[in-house]
């Protein structure tokens, strides 16, 4: 109960923080987009520019409300945003909220699986390296982690594509679903089949940070006074790491993993592009390349909330699970 009572004011403060953040992000992005040299009408029409008359241009601008002064445009955008309407995507011709919902569902499977996998693998590798500190295994794990951190993730994706799809022919080259098949007919197996490589890329990219962090923390714990005392009491080996090591590194590791949503999203953008996976990442690239301002704004706000949720969960886990922050001295 005490936990809940303490969490309420904190949660309220977090909500206020998020609202302020969203307000700032929307004002800044909207304002800057107005200053941008990109002409949304031109971006909308794309290659057909030459065939469109001046009147048609104006009609299009008026249709999207682009002929209004910026303040008014922002006012209108904001009022509808508060009513849950984020405008209409220019490229998909459907409401932004629908695009976000559909694309995020696709990306969520991808990101969620990769997040879990990279967390488990990275944690395991970190624990292994720390337990064998200074050995060749430790050195190899560290070397791999540092190298992965310097690897362009899209290049890694291309390499995986080359190896598994082109050479071995085990997996499809791209697309979230097989071409020429209706959405309803896509089986879960097909979907999974097409997810393997993007998930693999995203998992491998995420391993480095969590593994190095876990290694560092566990080494610190293994050199701590309380592990020395535990050894003096006859504890050793795996049991010792299980009892005292994991207890003390699990929470920081899980928190770090939650706080890595920003990198996860960035990785998904690149991986989805390589594998033509129809998720939010690819939508981001499309919106940026083709000047779909409403969609881009929507994605910016959505990803802000996404990252914020990750960080907040990390923080909350500490508040709920760590006895030292859970209650004050009894």
């Amino acid at each position, binding site marked *: 109960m005490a936990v809940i009572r303490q969490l309420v004011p904190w949660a309220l403060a977090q909500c206020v923080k998020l609202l302020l953040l969203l307000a700032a992000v929307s004002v800044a992005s909207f304002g800057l987009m107005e200053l941008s040299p990109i002409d949304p009408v031109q971006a909308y029409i794309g290659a057909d520019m030459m065939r469109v008359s001046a009147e048609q241009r104006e009609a299009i601008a008026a249709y999207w409300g682009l002929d209004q002064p910026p303040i008014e445009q922002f006012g209108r955008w904001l009022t509808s945003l508060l009513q849950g309407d984020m405008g209409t995507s220019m490229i998909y011709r459907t409401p932004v909220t629908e695009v976000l919902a559909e694309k995020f569902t696709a990306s969520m499977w991808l990101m969620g699986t990769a997040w879990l996998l990279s967390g488990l693998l990275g944690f395991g590798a970190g624990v292994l390296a720390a337990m064998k500190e200074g050995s060749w295994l430790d050195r190899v794990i560290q070397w791999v982690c*540092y190298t992965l951190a310097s690897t362009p993730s*899209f*290049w890694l994706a291309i390499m995986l594509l080359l190896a598994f799809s082109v050479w071995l022919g085990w997996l499809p080259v791209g697309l979230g679903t097989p071409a020429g098949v209706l959405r309803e007919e896509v089986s879960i197996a097909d979907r999974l089949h097409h997810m393997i490589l993007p998930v693999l890329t995203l998992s491998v990219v995420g391993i480095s940070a969590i593994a190095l962090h876990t290694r560092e923390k566990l080494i610190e714990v293994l050199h701590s006074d309380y592990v020395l005392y535990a050894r003096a009491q006859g504890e050793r080996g795996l049991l010792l790491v299980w009892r005292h090591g994991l207890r003390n590194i699990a929470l920081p590791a899980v928190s770090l993993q939650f706080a890595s949503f920003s990198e996860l999203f960035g990785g998904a*953008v*690149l991986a989805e592009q390589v594998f033509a996976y129809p998720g939010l990442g690819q939508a981001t690239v499309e919106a940026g*390349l083709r000047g779909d301002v409403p969609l881009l704004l929507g994605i910016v706000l959505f990803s802000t909330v996404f990252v*914020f949720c990750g960080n907040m969960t990390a923080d909350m886990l500490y508040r709920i699970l760590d006895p030292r922050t859970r209650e004050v001295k009894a």
Partner: protein
Amino acid sequence: MIRKAHTFLSFRSTSWSARRLQAWLSVASVALLLLLFAIGALWAAGQPIVTALTLRNLPPSAAYWFGTDWLGRDMLIRTLQGLQLSLQVGLAAGIMSAAIATLLGVLAASGKWADRVVSWLIDLFLSMPHLVLLILISFILGGGVQGVLFGVALTHWPSLARVIRAETLQLRQAEFIQVSRRMGNNWLWIGWHHMLPHLLPQLLVGTLLIIPHAILHEAGVTFLGMGLSAQQPAIGIILAESMRYLSTGMWWLALFPGLSLLIIVRCFDRLGHTLQRWTDPHRARN
């Protein structure tokens, strides 16, 4: 007393002089690699890229180490030129980022309100995914070199700004600064004569550690088609193009340019981390 015993653990790794030697070797080997690359880049810059239809789609050979592409262009020359461009953009953006970080970090240390504003700015910049922010900024700036350059510069400063802020705050409290202050020196003078020499190593290391990220992000945004234009031989462009020829089995188009980028990035990262351990062995762990 038991703590005393623990200090012996540090004896184990290696003595101070051996560590220094290792650091030297590491820096030297990285410097050698970068020098080799620089020579290669200089050589490549003088080589015109020739399209030779008779030499199309050649796999790597003694004459064409990295093979040739669908227009018969030498991939080694393209890669070296592309790396050079990526490196230039990455370096410039990294240095700009470090400048922003220094400015805001020192500003944050100057007063309570400035501190609040700066830390709020940091929160704001960290509030959305790095890459989304990068896409947004380069979109707003209309893409192209300047879009990427400013995009990368504007997204990589927060962590270094925090370091500079903490360091400046600590320095302000330091005895010798306080004495200098009582001797009637103004902050500007103190900043230049006392603080800058202390901040410089941090700044150098911080910049070096930004650069690998800057290069990777530049390459990423360019790969997505939002950065440098397709006529420029950037690594991101080369890799994006190679995607179209993957299914025909032309693996060398993707393997070598990416691997070269990886090695260069790893070099900068290694250099940064080595210098970091050197200048500040305690912070190196974090």
